[in-house]
């Protein structure tokens, strides 16, 4: 079930209404857990077992971790093995098998190994990281374990963020279960506006750009340089609108049910450098990787070389988290290199240097350009298509003759203006100034307008595949 599908509307209205009508918090939680499982089962009921298994293991591990004399490392190890084992089996087994077979072939062997061909359960990368955050925080002693299985199950499966984030940490979410929530606490207007903004990004922008991008990446050799660049830029817009739109809708739905979900995007395309970019893009993932991988590896506390190696490991694994393919590994490594270059630049060029002023002026376009080019690796499928798309974009060597016409510049300009307006708060004050009745009328009208500009063939969220 997608937030932009029509069937989500009755589902959410029912979940919302029953939830707020129930008096006891535990009943509300149980109701939302049922809704969350139903939400997931609408895609594939069989894979609910994985979520339930992950929940049971982490709940039990959490309880065992705080027992006096517990073998903490062993219990944490169990949680890591089960969670990462499921993720590895379903997401990476075929990739590693294929890569090993290819490697052995290159070495002159002829191995006969089949693949598992497993379906990737939606959202497995997201909820695995969530459950891991619970076990690790309990292990570290920064979070008290929950005795209630219902609490842990609800934290893992809460439907607004279950399948595509934001990745919510146990330490952020579980304390919210300890206070009685009231609808009066919810800023319904702000939540509805956030949902509308997310809907517009996903259904009106991302879905309408998808056919042009899919056509290019299906046959990049048919396009000229202008077409390749237009497709590359379109994709950066599509993925931002798709994922941040989903996050907006998830946060808004969570808020309407009385729960705070963390910020996941903050206008990343206005970032002045690649480090700032990663503080604004998929914040819940980048901060997870920082806190649970980069810092434990030593972070920037060791030598410069050690810091660079840590960055390379963290970003390459970040790339691999996105998908089981060498393209994602390369994409992650490329961003590690960009972060290292930025780090060295910041260290070597003094604050007073005129070069700093130049980089400050060019920072935003350069960061956007780096991201756009790197996203060719992210989007292209197969070595041949990737190579051709990169040749077209980076080397301006495009054999084809197709493009999207100069109209793409108009589309780009319109979207840039919209984005800038959103960044600098245009329109928000106007919405805020409306009286309550006027707001309800205007929101309905705006939603109807957004529906007309959305695509009838809803595209799945891009991050569902991760």
């Amino acid at each position, binding site marked *: 079930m997608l937030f932009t599908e029509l069937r989500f509307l009755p589902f959410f209205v029912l979940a919302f209404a029953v939830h707020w009508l129930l008096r006891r918090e535990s009943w509300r939680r149980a109701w939302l857990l049922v809704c969350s499982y139903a939400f997931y089962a609408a895609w594939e009921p069989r894979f609910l077992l994985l979520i339930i298994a992950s929940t049971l293991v982490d709940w039990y591990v959490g309880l065992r971790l705080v027992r006096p004399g517990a073998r903490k490392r062993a219990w944490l190890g169990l949680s890591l093995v089960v969670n990462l084992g499921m993720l590895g089996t379903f997401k990476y087994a075929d990739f590693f098998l294929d890569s090993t077979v290819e490697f052995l072939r290159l070495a002159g062997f002829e191995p006969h190994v089949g693949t598992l061909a497993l379906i990737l359960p939606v959202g497995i990368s997201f909820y695995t990281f969530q459950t891991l955050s619970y076990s690790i925080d309990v292990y570290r002693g920064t979070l008290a374990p929950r005795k209630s299985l219902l609490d842990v199950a609800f934290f893992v499966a809460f439907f607004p963020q279950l399948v595509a984030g934001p990745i919510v940490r146990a330490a952020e979410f579980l304390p919210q279960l300890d206070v009685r929530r009231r609808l009066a606490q919810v800023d319904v207007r702000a939540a509805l506006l956030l949902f509308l903004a997310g809907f517009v990004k996903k259904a009106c922008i991302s879905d309408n750009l998808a056919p042009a991008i899919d056509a290019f990446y299906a046959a990049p050799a048919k396009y000229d340089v202008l077409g390749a660049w237009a497709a590359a830029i379109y994709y950066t817009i599509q993925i931002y609108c798709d994922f941040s739109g989903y996050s907006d809708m998830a946060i808004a739905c969570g808020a309407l049910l009385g729960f705070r979900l963390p910020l996941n995007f903050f206008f990343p395309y206005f970032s002045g450098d690649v480090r700032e970019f990663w503080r604004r893009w998929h914040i819940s993932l980048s901060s997870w990787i920082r806190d649970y991988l980069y810092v434990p590896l030593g972070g920037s506390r060791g030598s410069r070389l050690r810091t660079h190696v840590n960055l390379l490991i963290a970003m390459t694994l970040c790339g691999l988290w996105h998908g089981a393919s060498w393209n994602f590994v390369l994409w992650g490594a490329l961003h590690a290199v960009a972060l290292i270059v930025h780090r060295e630049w910041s260290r070597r060029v003094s604050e007073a240097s005129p070069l700093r002023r130049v980089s400050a002026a060019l920072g935003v376009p350069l960061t956007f350009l780096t991201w756009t080019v790197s996203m060719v690796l992210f989007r292209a499928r197969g070595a041949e298509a990737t190579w051709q798309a990169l040749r077209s974009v980076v080397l301006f060597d495009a054999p084809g003759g197709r493009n999207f016409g100069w109209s793409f510049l108009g589309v780009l300009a319109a979207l840039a203006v919209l984005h800038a307006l959103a960044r600098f708060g245009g329109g928000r004050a106007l919405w805020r100034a409306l009286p309550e009745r006027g707001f309800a009328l205007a929101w309905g009208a705006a939603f*109807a307008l957004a529906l007309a500009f959305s695509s*009838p063939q809803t595209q799945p969220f891009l991050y569902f595949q991760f």
Partner: protein
Amino acid sequence: MSTRNDPLTLARVRLAELVREPQATPARKACPGRGRRWGLDVLLCLLGAWATSRALAFLIDRVPGATLEVETALRVKSQYFDLHRDEFDLVFVGSSRVYYQVIPRLFDQRMASYGVPTTSFNMGVPGMYFPETRHVVERLLARHPKRLRWLVIELQDLERVIIPVDRLTRRMIHWHTPGLTTLAAEVAWRADSPWSERRARIADHLLHGAYRFANLGNGLPALRAACGGDPRAPDASTWMDGFVALEQEPKNRGQIEASRRRFLEQTDDVARRLASRGAGPERPRDPLLERELGDLVQLVRAAGVEPIFLIAPPLWEERGDLERLAADGIVPALLSYDDPERFPEFYAVPNLFDFGHLNLRGSEIFSARLAADLSDLLGD
């Protein structure tokens, strides 16, 4: 390092304020009549959405070509017909059996030679079944074509409505008016299939209907059309009279050639199919179809146009039930070519492209035959 004035921190604070702290919220008793207020807000929201969608529908409907699927012939044909609507006195409407088989130029020549000069247009579109045909007829008549005297409408039963590949396309969404959505749901309801399948079909039609009501997907094309048209639309003059032979159809080449190959591999099957015609049980009368056809006839006649129905070849099953509609007076005039004994030329391998369609040679024979029969009918 984040500070209190850092935009990222401010954004986090603003997001956290979506759900305020309990102590910062007034107690429940302080909000009397909350349920009524919520109800009123929901009603106002629905009112805003309803008024906007109706206003948009009104505007979009006034932009020619904005509401039809870009990828199909329907849009181009509609645009062409809009531009030349006062030139035609006869229009053919139907599925691919009209689109690929009726050659208006040849038909007009023959009609002129029989002393009934016509200027006809082929408004056939692949995959156009009864509800969509009805919708196209409505739209066509709403343009008030001044010279139009006859509408030749392919007679189809109600069972086939949407082919899976067309599901949720803008073209399919567009014909799901409230009346036609109800009709499609009625057809699904009475279908002889398991309840789960019928329920899914009904839900699907309701979804199409809801999407139509919400103008889903119509905003951008309307904007594009209003700003000077869609550069992707092919030159309407290439369609001229609306006919394209299957051999020359540029779209879906792979699919068309695969169908042709299958036919050539199984030409022996033609004899078997002909032999097994009429072996099935006789179809009962369909009151729903009779009601819908009666409405359609009324609609066409109200516009001062005479409807003529057509059963186009090749048809491999006995359709006496459709022919009975003419005998019972439900359709005023019917030209039927479903009998291989009377029309062996439409069931002969050299005149067929595949099992569903005639080839160019077959289409020429069919168009000539149609002219002869229609001139006789009009002469009577």
